């Protein structure tokens, strides 16, 4: 009878430990993931008690569960959508039942093309963002240039000016307007990539655009960035209105040709269970028709193009698109371990623990393993010291990024050199900027040129 009781407790605790751990990696909320892991730890502590290791169960509760509690608190404070309410609401609006309602994963396949904007003559891909200083930098979402750190602007603005102006192209340096070349290249003075002489105007026009969140239309700002509420990449209002206007057309093309929506369809198996992934590879025509309608409905509901919908899924995903492979590898490693432990003839002992565990472990710690604990204490101290040092470095960087009121080195008779893109960089000798690699120029020249241009950054 005692054995059956032990088995019942063992099976219950084991199930809780494994299921909550698995739920941790499948849930769409980090807050719930932390709570699930705490539940798994507590169930493991119960198993420790079942194994007559009471002291370790107490330590498990105090250290691991306590640690996870702190982690969960941090998650609530710093994570976007920590409770997963936004994702949950989306899944509910999409009528996704079962396990799919608990998880949000990276969509698989290539991102869909912006077909509606490509087909119309005179318009360009609205999602191409490029750097005004480095036209070779192109990406499909707003952000900063990886080379010079400037805010990326939409290529459309630059290209529209290229089409409207039929003048002969003249390339100039943003920092040295006296440099005028008939071919693109680098500035002979500072090495910056030359831009067309008329690219100033679209820059100004770009600042007049407003950017809004696809999920929170009330969020409006005049520069690209992330939504302060959900963290999604903001879209320009032109984009949004264009997507509303072309949504019907896009929907029709999706119904006519399933290939245009590859990577957007939602897999549905024969028994009606939807898979965890939000998007799956293309299905057979019979199934995909239904799935396309769901996707189309979802996109119309959010007023998005397929590309924007895909981007939103990428922004919100908790795990990568390789989750099925990761799960397969996890199962394979678990099975391998199980086979190994079952096949190995373990030399089992007959009796149970004889001593009082707390006393025995305490004596061992003091007599034999003190050095190990001192090592652990050293690790803790090293971690704290590392965190303090990193925090100090961060504060120093913040101070450097604050604009200095006036250049002061010139009155001392010494020449200082600075980066046109990073005025906070001050060097006493010529060289390259440590941040973007541009050639440093004398400080006075930067101030003068920035006054001339009204400043880019």
């Amino acid at each position: 009878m005692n054995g059956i009781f032990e088995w019942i407790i063992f099976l219950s605790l084991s199930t809780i430990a494994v299921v909550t751990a698995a739920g941790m990696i499948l849930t769409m909320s980090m807050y719930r993931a932390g709570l699930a892991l705490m539940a798994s730890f507590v169930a493991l502590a119960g198993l420790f008690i079942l194994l007559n290791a009471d002291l370790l169960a107490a330590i498990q509760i105090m250290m691991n569960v306590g640690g996870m509690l702190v982690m969960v608190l941090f998650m609530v404070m710093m994570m976007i959508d920590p409770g997963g309410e936004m994702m949950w609401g989306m899944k509910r609006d999409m009528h996704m039942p079962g396990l799919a309602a608990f998880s949000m994963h990276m969509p698989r396949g290539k991102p869909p093309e912006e077909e509606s904007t490509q087909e119309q003559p005179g318009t360009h891909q609205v999602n191409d963002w490029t750097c005004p200083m480095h036209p070779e930098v192109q990406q499909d979402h707003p952000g900063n240039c990886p080379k010079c750190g400037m805010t990326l602007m939409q290529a459309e603005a630059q290209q529209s000016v290229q089409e409207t102006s039929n003048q002969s192209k003249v390339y100039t340096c943003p920092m040295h307007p006296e440099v005028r070349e008939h071919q693109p290249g680098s500035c002979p003075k500072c090495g910056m990539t030359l831009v067309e002489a008329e690219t100033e105007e679209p820059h100004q026009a770009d600042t007049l655009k407003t950017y809004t969140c696809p999920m929170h239309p009330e969020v409006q700002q005049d520069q690209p960035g992330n939504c302060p509420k959900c963290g999604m990449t903001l879209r320009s209002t032109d984009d949004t209105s264009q997507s509303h206007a072309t949504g019907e057309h896009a929907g029709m093309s999706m119904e006519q040709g399933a290939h245009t929506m590859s990577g957007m369809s939602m897999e549905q198996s024969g028994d009606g269970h939807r898979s965890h992934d939000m998007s799956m590879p293309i299905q057979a025509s019979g199934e995909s028709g239904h799935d396309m309608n769901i996707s189309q409905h979802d996109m119309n509901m959010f007023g998005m193009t397929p590309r924007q919908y895909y981007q939103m899924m990428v922004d919100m995903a908790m795990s990568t698109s390789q989750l099925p492979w990761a799960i397969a590898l996890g199962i394979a490693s678990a099975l391998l371990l199980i086979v190994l432990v079952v096949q190995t003839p373990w030399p089992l002992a007959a009796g149970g623990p004889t001593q009082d565990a707390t006393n025995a472990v305490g004596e061992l710690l003091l007599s034999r393993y003190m050095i190990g604990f001192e090592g652990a204490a050293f690790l803790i101290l090293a971690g704290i010291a590392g965190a303090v040092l990193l925090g100090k470095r961060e504060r120093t960087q913040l101070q450097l990024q604050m604009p200095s009121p006036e250049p002061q080195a010139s009155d001392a008779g010494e020449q200082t050199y600075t980066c046109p893109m990073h005025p906070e960089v001050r060097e006493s000798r010529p060289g390259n900027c440590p941040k973007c690699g541009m050639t440093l120029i004398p400080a006075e020249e930067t101030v003068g040129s920035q006054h001339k241009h009204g400043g880019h950054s």
Partner: protein
Amino acid sequence: MSGPGLIPYLIVGALLFGVGVAGVLSQRSGLMVLMSIEIMLNAAVLTLIAFWRFVGPANYDAQVFVIIIVTIAAVEMAAGLGLMLLVFRQRGNANVDSLKDLKQ
């Protein structure tokens, strides 16, 4: 009927380890990766305690070893959380994908 022996505990440990492997390989957030590592460490701890109980219950060295592992897990959690917090403040997210500064 006696209670569960060594093998059932080892199987639970193996399952937990597999869950941890899947989590480490699939999650985008650095915090979730750390939490998955915690699962793997706990699987190792359960295995160690099971071996102590059924193979050498008279020798308490295994328990000391477990205490050290738990301590290191707590350290890893604290240091990792501090690092991720710093990363989040600097970049606006704690995704592992965004930590590729050395590549540039």
